[in-house]
């Protein structure tokens, strides 16, 4: 018998008396006087993220310049920003090691936690979200859902090879409980509220 068969046989033999099927999980939608955007912003900021409420007439490249004046290598996975480094499906992760700022457009956000959803479609090369020193995430305000129950209903979880809910920058408090941003991943994460360009749909 293979190990697989041995394990499954042992599990079958030992399983406790079957309990009934799980009821449908409620959505737990909360009635709030505040908008999803306001809740999203507050949650994001409490998790250490930065929030840019709008481009305010500026171009995206101008925003980048103002947020990251010293950035040498800017790599954008969305055609909305030019950047200085190209990225495509053939880009190896290590080629992104010197990226100062990564720019991506999130598929959607979750207001409960201030999280943004990214997959290989939004990242092109997944490692961009981790090797860059800073990350700028564009988010369409119409693509913000309420809580995680709603977020997890998104069908893209089932088709993406890799999907991540990113909430704020990389962080640790492993040394005497002191909070440090930029543990191994990005040192800062900024979400800019920018409507999707025309024709960009689900």
């Amino acid at each position, binding site marked *: 018998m293979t*190990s*697989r068969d041995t*394990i*499954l046989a*042992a*599990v079958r*033999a*030992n*399983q*406790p008396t*079957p*309990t009934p099927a*799980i*009821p*449908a*999980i409620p959505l737990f939608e909360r009635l709030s006087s505040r908008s999803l955007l306001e809740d999203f912003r507050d*949650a994001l900021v409490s998790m250490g993220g930065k929030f840019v409420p709008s481009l305010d007439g500026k171009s995206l490249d101008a925003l980048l310049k103002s947020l990251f004046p010293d950035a040498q290598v800017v790599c954008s996975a969305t055609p909305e920003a030019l950047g200085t480094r190209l990225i495509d*499906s053939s880009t190896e*992760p*290590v080629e992104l*090691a010197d990226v100062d700022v990564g720019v991506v457009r999130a598929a959607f956000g979750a207001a*409960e*936690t*201030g*999280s943004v959803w990214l997959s*290989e479609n939004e990242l092109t090369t*997944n*490692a961009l*979200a*981790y*090797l860059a020193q800073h990350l700028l995430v564009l988010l369409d305000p119409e693509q913000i859902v309420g*809580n*995680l*129950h709603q*977020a*997890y209903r998104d069908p893209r*979880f*089932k088709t*993406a*090879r*890799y*999907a*991540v*809910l*990113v*909430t*704020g*920058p990389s962080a*640790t*408090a*492993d*040394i*005497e*409980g*002191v909070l*440090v941003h930029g*543990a*191994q*991943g*990005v040192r800062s994460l900024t979400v800019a509220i920018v409507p999707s360009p025309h024709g960009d749909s689900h």
Partner: protein
Amino acid sequence: MRPINHAEASSHFIEAKEHLEFHDRRLWDLRLKRDRQAHGIPEWEELRNLASTIKEHTLSHLADYLEQFETQAKTNGAHVHWARDASEHNEIVYGILSARSAKTLVKSKSMLTEECDMRPYLETRGIRIIETDLGERIQQLDDEPPSHIVVPAVHKLRDDVSEVFARTIEAQPGNNDPHYLAEVMRRNTRPYFLNAEAGMTGANFAIAETGSFVVCTNEGNADLSANVPKLHIACIGIEKIIPKFEHLAVFIRMLSRSALGSPITQYTSHFRAPRPGTELHIVFVDNGRSQRLGMKDFWYSLKCIRCGACMNTCPVYRRSGGLSYGATYSGPIGIIIDPAFDIRKYSNLPYASTLNGSCTNVCPVKINIHEQIYKWRQIMVERNQLPLVKKEAIRIIGKVMSEPQLYRAAISATGLAIEHLPRFAIYNWLNPWGKQREVPEVPKQSFRSWYLENRTRQ
């Protein structure tokens, strides 16, 4: 081999006053943060019930869900391996690495790999392993196991970390600023992420409906380990399965809130299929889980999602530290899991508890921890695992208490002893009570004598 002596280890822990004070305060603070999050969600107790229901259902149909996961994962292009025990796990991992000539492995936190003692096994076979979680790396560099499953170096102060880093990774000696030390670690680890041939993660949850698994971290180290090298190995305990994505929401809402008092971890990563041109290997591990599944009083411990909330709330854990339990899993959850691995080695652990029940109340999946601790004590007695002194003391008390006349004689004898013996005879090494406490005064008469005098006809 002598059983782990938690009480003795705890006395050393308590002597280091500054460390003890920080350890207790830090973990209690995490408990308070957890409370704030929990009380901010009106449906919190309902979520706990749902989480418990989901886990109990899944565990009672575990074989079917494991098979469903495997079918999906293989369709997605992942390899699925099965390890009956710790050694087989280590052999499988080594097999995967050596077949691809992988010499360096970057890994994120996985208690399962600690449980399997994987690192020494691979290191003696020429694989270089870099722990990338900051707490785990501190411990690796200091050649000490992690003490807490979520914050592995919580028992260390910044001076300790500074000393370790100065000794091992060329940090400036004497610089104990946590920001500086974290930056030193960041720069030291980055080349390993970029050059390692393989990356390893654990998994918090494995979703049967899609063959996906989920890793929750704050540093981004799991995502680097998984998304830079061309080989990703994920080690998953068979009890981590849940049926659907819809169920995942319940757990993700509670995991970080319970562990650290934050609504979610900075990174919640879902892996379903390998990146094009890379390999994904999933290693399912049994190592005693299927056996525990059949223990009618203890299988509920398999619901555990490794949040550590029980450790944070446990007043004994906070004052003795994870290392005093002598096992990969410490604190309340450790007490109910470890004896299943080695009943003799861990025979004392069920007594390292006041049975206060706080752990049970904070457990997001409603494991009845304190009740299982109570039950393990019965097993220890039945399997003759109590030290002779304890056994005899309990037997004698039981005998005295079951016979009224013996009981009355014992009470007056004790009373006489306390009243008449000199202090040094009462407060000495034979009397643990008296080491740091005063013994009660002896009253003029017992309740019973008072009752006889005042309420019955003489």
